């Protein structure tokens, strides 16, 4: 390997070699690595906007009563916070950034199957996000429906719902096309010798995710168009005053939006599954169980949507059937946790930042998952449904889970992306602040939720004050952690990174950092007796 590298003729993908230079060279590039990075920058920007909106909410909620702005502003802020964080940050999230950057490297491909379609997906993403953001500044004021757009409120409100809904619709297409691209890439472009059951587990998780993207997203697309049709053409789909059924909306919405949770979390699990063996220098424990549990989550995840609707007045039969199915989906998640922890047994563990974030992920994901159990059970759900408890639960999954996995993934693949290292100490500090801040921010919400604090409240009863104040200070710590992380990653150039800084075994660690444009000089192969995680 070393000998080869010294007279490597191929320039790195970060060097402009085509017709254009600078920004244009990036915007016209069909290189999966550049597209992955562009998604990353865009997502970081949107995430920052979402965080600022979150802080604005926590400021308003510091005391009961009105502090800095009125209820209409609050309702607009929590709506756009949700739309930005869900549709432009966590749904594309890990799949768009690291699916693009790492997937072809990990399976030994030169690019994804349809590079131009891939760039088109990115533009759709930018367009959809721009429309969603523009909804804030056009028409009759920012939408105030919550990211769920529940009918009939979303049909009746005078605010600018159509633009936000249309933005989400366009973002959906970006998601579908990315999913399709990845499925074809994994079926057609794996390295010689890499059978499906020799594929690394991050690609496996992307495979399960991609099928949800392709099969579930069209349903929400249709549903969003129905809202637009109802608002413009007064066709009564959902609003009872037009002859529609508001519960039908909830079914259609959650048939997509519950599986969407797995679009977010499956790639996160996949990233953790890569990081643990690398830093424990140990073969992953239960390879097949992890691969199959991804598929199990993706398929059972389709049949649990109505657990968002236990109090909607559904029949008792529907309620217990969905409760039972919901509990079944807990099992494959538990399997993964057991396998991760067992992989550490008798390993040789080096606690570097990516591993630290992976440990944080496992802990926060366990809390998120376990607090989900009382949301899946009927009697307990009735009490905490639509309260701050739910807010805490899904932030533990979506931010503690997906967010921390995202941070872990950045710290893991950063040397490969830029060919540079970052300051390890600073990275560890970012973890300390993010982890402490996160728990201080969201754990009190479990408690006030149990006490009866409803969600989406601009004002609240005095008994919830202390909980909200703890959350505010947690939010401040979290922001500090995030800023430290941005400084660590982007403030100055670190030392040159070796090709394989962590001792990983998957293909991407065998090529130069940063990789050349076409990834592999010599196509990699897996021998008959080789697997993806053969540590010595």
């Amino acid at each position, binding site marked *: 390997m070393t000998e080869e590298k010294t007279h490597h003729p191929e320039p790195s993908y970060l060097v402009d070699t085509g017709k254009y230079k600078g920004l244009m060279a990036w915007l016209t590039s069909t290189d999966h690595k550049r597209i992955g990075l562009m998604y990353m920058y865009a997502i970081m920007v949107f995430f920052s906007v979402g965080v600022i909106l979150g802080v604005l909410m926590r400021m308003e909620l510091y005391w009961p009563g009105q502090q800095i702005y009125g*209820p209409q502003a609050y*309702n607009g802020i929590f709506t756009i916070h949700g739309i930005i964080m869900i549709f432009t940050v966590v749904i594309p999230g890990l799949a768009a950034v690291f699916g693009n950057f790492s997937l072809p490297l990990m399976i030994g491909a030169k690019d994804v199957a349809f590079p131009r379609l891939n760039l088109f997906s990115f533009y759709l993403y930018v367009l959809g996000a721009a429309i969603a953001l523009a909804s804030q500044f056009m028409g*009759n*004021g920012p939408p*105030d429906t919550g990211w769920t757009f*529940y009918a*009939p*409120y979303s049909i*009746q*409100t*005078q*605010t600018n719902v159509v633009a936000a809904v249309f933005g989400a619709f366009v973002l959906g297409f970006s998601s579908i096309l990315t999913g399709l691209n990845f499925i074809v890439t994994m079926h057609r472009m794996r390295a010689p010798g890499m059978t499906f059951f020799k594929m690394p587990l991050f690609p496996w998780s992307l495979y399960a995710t991609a099928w949800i993207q392709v099969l579930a997203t069209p349903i929400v697309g249709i549903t969003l168009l129905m809202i637009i049709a109802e608002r413009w053409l007064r066709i009564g789909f959902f609003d*009872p005053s037009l002859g529609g*059924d508001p*519960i039908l909306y909830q079914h259609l919405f959650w048939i997509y939006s519950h599986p969407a949770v797995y679009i977010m979390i499956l790639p996160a699990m996949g990233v953790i599954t890569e990081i643990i063996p690398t830093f424990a*220098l*140990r073969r992953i424990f*239960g*390879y097949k*169980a992890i691969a199959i549990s991804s598929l199990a989550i993706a398929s059972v995840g389709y049949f649990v949507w109505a657990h968002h609707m236990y*109090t909607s*007045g559904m029949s*008792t039969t529907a309620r*217990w059937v969905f409760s039972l199915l919901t*509990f*079944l989906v*807990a099992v494959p998640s*538990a*399997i993964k*946790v*057991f396998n991760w*922890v067992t992989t*550490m*047994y*008798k*390993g*040789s*563990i080096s606690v570097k930042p990516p591993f630290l974030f992976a440990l944080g992920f*496992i802990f926060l994901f*366990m*809390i998120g998952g*376990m*607090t989900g*159990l009382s949301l*899946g*059970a*009927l*009697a*307990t759900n*009735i*009490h905490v*449904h*639509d*309260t701050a408890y739910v807010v805490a639960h899904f932030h533990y999954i979506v931010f503690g889970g997906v967010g921390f996995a995202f941070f872990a993934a950045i710290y893991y693949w950063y040397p490969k992306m830029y060919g540079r290292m970052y300051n390890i100490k600073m990275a560890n500090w970012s973890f300390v602040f993010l982890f402490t801040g996160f728990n201080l921010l969201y754990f009190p919400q479990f408690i006030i939720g149990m006490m*009866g604090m*409803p*969600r989406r*409240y601009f*004002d609240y009863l005095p008994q919830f004050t202390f909980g909200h104040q703890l959350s505010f200070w947690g939010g401040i710590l979290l922001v500090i952690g995030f800023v430290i992380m941005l400084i660590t990653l982007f403030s100055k150039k670190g030392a040159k990174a070796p090709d394989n800084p962590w001792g990983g075994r998957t293909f991407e660690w065998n090529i130069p950092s940063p990789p050349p444009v076409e990834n592999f000089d010599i196509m990699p192969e897996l021998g008959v007796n080789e697997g993806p995680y053969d*540590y010595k």
Partner: protein
Amino acid sequence: MGASNFVEGVDLAFKIIFGISLFFLVGITTVMLYFVYRYNRKRHPQAVQIKDNNFLEFTWITVPLILVLLMFYYGYVAFSPMRNVPKDAIPITVIGKMWVWTFEYEGGKQSPVLVVPLNKAVKLNLHSDDVIHSLYIPAFRIKEDVVPGKKNYMWFIAQQPGEYDVLCTVYCGLRHSYMETKTRVVSEEEYAAWLKALPEKSAEPDGLVILKKNACTGCHSIDGSKIVSTSFKGLYGKTEKVVTNGTERSITVDDEYIMTSVYDPDKDLVVGYPKGLMKTYRGIVTEDEMNKVIDYLKTIK
């Protein structure tokens, strides 16, 4: 004894689920941190490659499966009575309207507070005319959505006298967080006396009935206080500064202005209010009704 007949079952389900969860959370975290310490590269420079173990995999599929089925069961048994209302339950109709709860007792008597007798089954029939609300009484561990165009219900037996919060948990617009009231649990005698003293559906002027029916009074008070927007009291004949097509002008509130602001709220917008705050009532309130409203407004100067 819990505040309602459901508290015990629901709280038991919580304890079982939280108990099992806490055991696993602490257990797994401890084992994980121990591994990180014990097999740290400093102490354990050479990893040992362990082979997959089918027995282990099988165990941690079946044990969680059994445990979650147990949780499902406890959740179900505590929930199931919530949907079986005793035949002799006292029926009360709950009307959810942006952003006020109203409780209608037998004979059409209405109250803004839910008063119920101790140790008697009460059935709440849930009704909404506008958007989805959800009636939540945390102390009783009950909640059910109030969906326009759908029938839904809930019931309970209050077991402790006292006053408890009643909240709305499905987001319903501007003043969602103010859609709250109390439920008061009193002895049977007190309840009977209270119900008797509750005034019959009052002979309110037609105009006020229309204003209340359309929840206008949710934002515009009739006593001069400011809720969201201008109070109706003293509105008729008042001079207001409005913005029309971007230019400011002064108008006097008269019949024509009131009609415009109900049917086309954003046309002449009072200075200081954002567009879109109020929806149009065209097709909802007829002109005939509007004339009655104007007649009423003239009376509350």
